[in-house]
């Protein structure tokens, strides 16, 4: 890579010991992000997307962490807590899903924003901080900011509270904003307002944005690059266009096919069968194989590494299917099916039969 990345995460592992065993929440994830870009991290509940980013910020205490996360020359995974406290908020800030529980109910929002400013910039007076809070509330589109700055969180609606969170997140002009499901709790029209605001602020200040979401629609809307996570690993990484139109990993393909779309209203959806695995007892080989319609023998024993697929070289997928079998075309499908036929013996055939026998399996979706 010739361009210096703002954040470069290499082979990050995070585990938590519990009474039931070691929960392998993140298992070797690498990515980097540049200024002014948006990385969408997509995955279902329990795929490790939130643990991943909280670890970067030192917000996941008790984890067994290994790997590297270089941000502006420092490794976020090894910096001492007091130095991390200087980075968090000032250089990397976070927007959480639920703005009501992230704001303190007993303090005025203006106080909460100015506290953040004063914690990092010791020379700022209270009056200056409040003036900046007013300006920030105005920037995120809260009407009458000079009055609203004295209101409590409960006096704001959900969308307005999320705007307050965003005002707080941008208050110190961070280089990187991590937004963890920022619009999931909001209505569609409000979600559109908030995404619009995030994009505008990002364009104004060249901030990098990591958008964690389970909603592919949000990713389609604002991401530049996308990382799809499954069971603590990156299943596929690519520019947005390739994820949506040239997917390689069967999990990505399955997610796209699960979404109701306008062209097939009323028809049958093609869900991914089964449930995500337990992160304590992960399946052998590829963690997705017990749900994969294209399961082959080697998937049961060997875990595929993230390797380049397609032409450009930036598109990477962790799957044993041939690198050329990308996309949703019939040709790619035929290629996948040929490969699966060659790659299957008794063991994989048995699993494929189990998958096809599940009540939720759609007809013809499993290569039998």
């Amino acid at each position: 890579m010739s361009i210096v990345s703002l954040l470069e995460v290499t082979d990050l592992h995070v585990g938590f010991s519990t009474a039931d065993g070691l929960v392998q929440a993140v298992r070797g994830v690498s990515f980097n992000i540049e200024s002014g870009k948006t990385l969408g991290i997509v995955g279902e509940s329990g795929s490790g997307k939130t643990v991943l980013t909280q670890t970067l910020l030192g917000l996941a205490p008790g984890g067994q962490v290994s790997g590297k996360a270089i941000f502006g020359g420092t490794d976020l995974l090894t910096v001492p807590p007091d130095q991390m406290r200087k980075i968090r908020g000032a250089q990397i800030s976070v927007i959480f899903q639920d703005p009501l529980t992230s704001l303190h109910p007993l303090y005025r929002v203006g106080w909460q924003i100015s506290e953040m400013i004063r914690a990092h910039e010791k020379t700022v007076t209270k009056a200056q901080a409040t003036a900046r809070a007013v300006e920030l509330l105005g920037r995120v589109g809260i009407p009458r900011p000079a009055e609203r700055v004295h209101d409590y969180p409960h006096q704001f609606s959900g969308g307005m509270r999320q705007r307050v969170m965003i005002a707080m997140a941008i208050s110190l002009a961070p280089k990187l904003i991590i937004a963890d499901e920022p619009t999931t709790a909001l209505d569609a029209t409000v979600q559109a307002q908030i995404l619009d605001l995030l994009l505008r602020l990002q364009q104004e200040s060249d901030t990098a944005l990591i958008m964690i979401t389970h909603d592919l629609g949000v990713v389609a809307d604002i991401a530049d690059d996308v990382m799809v996570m499954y069971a603590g690993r990156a299943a596929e990484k690519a520019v947005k266009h390739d994820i949506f139109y040239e997917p390689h990993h069967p999990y990505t393909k399955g997610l796209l096919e699960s979404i109701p779309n306008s062209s097939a209203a009323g028809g049958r959806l093609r869900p991914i069968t089964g449930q995500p695995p337990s992160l304590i007892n992960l399946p052998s080989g590829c963690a997705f194989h017990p749900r994969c319609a294209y399961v082959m023998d080697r998937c049961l024993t060997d875990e595929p590494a993230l390797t380049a697929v397609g032409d450009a070289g930036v598109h990477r997928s962790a799957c044993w299917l041939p690198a050329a079998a990308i996309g949703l075309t019939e040709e790619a499908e035929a290629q996948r099916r040929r490969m699966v036929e060659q790659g299957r013996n008794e063991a994989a055939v048995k699993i494929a039969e189990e998958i096809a026998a599940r009540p939720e399996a759609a007809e013809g979706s499993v290569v039998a």
Partner: protein
Amino acid sequence: MSDIMPSDTAPIGSLERSLQDDVLVQVDNLVKHFPVRGGGLISRTIGQVQAVDGVSLTLKRGQTMGLVGETGCGKSTLARCIAGLIPVTSGKVAFDGQDITNLSRRAMQPFRREIQMIFQDPYGSLNPRRRVGSIIGDPFAIHNIHDGQKRKSAVQDLMERVGLNPEHFNRFPAEFSGGQRQRIGVARALALRPKLIICDEPVSALDVSIQAQVLNLLADLQDDFGLAYLFIAHDLEVVRHVSHDVTVMYLGRVAEQGPRATVYDSARHPYTAALLSAAPAADPEAAEARQRIILTGDVPSPINPPSGCRFHPRCPKAQELCGRDEPALETRLGDPASHLTACHFPVQDGEILARGSRRDPR
């Protein structure tokens, strides 16, 4: 499977029923206001939350009516009124040709079998300390149908039908994942072979791949048992997928109502158009090409709704008339008679409401 319920109890044939044989639920001008009481020693009513304010809808047998709207538009209140869970302020709910508005508990009992609900939160709607077999068997217990071994086998049939392993009869809800818990909720709703299931955000809490499994299950059950659904959701793509007809609500009133295809393809109400343009589609090219209507502000308080058209303070097309006169819900711009819109200045075909693309060309 068919022995779970004794038989499809033949409804009383009346002239009214034969006239509108395919209508299952008829809601006429339903109003539900909640009083707001002041503090102090003697609490008096100081206002009304106009949660539902004059809504009419018709749900046909074996079909799905999608109910869309944002938080606080009254869609859940409307569903609870139809299910008879809360008394209505005025208006009429007819089920299967019979008026069921504000019936007494005893008179309502037979209709409770016919109308079931599935809730949003698969965690909160199942008692964590009871075994799923007994949760699913509850409707049988309440209505005195089957006992002992027969009830157990009926419950196991239901579990199998909704894609659960019947051997898991003795497990607790905590031992199931979110999608499986929603299946438990579906099995419980299905137990008495209702004619109507009210689904209040049934898939909102589920991951996409699991959401698709549950939507397919609901579609299969509709085909097999001729169920009608009142399907409440805020996800417009999900509603488009499941519904035959759609009702769009705003602040307690119907903004637009009609068959799915016409409402989605030629939305007349600016609010519907804004909702549709705001819903994120999982398709980057469509997202790029779309003209987005970004509404300003929030939904006003239902205690003090705006005068005239309730949407006018946020409407990109609002004119002076809109603040004065409430528009009637009627057919506009040569739409089919089933497509109703409450707007003085409905959106023309091909009209663009957006303020232009927000994206800088890159």
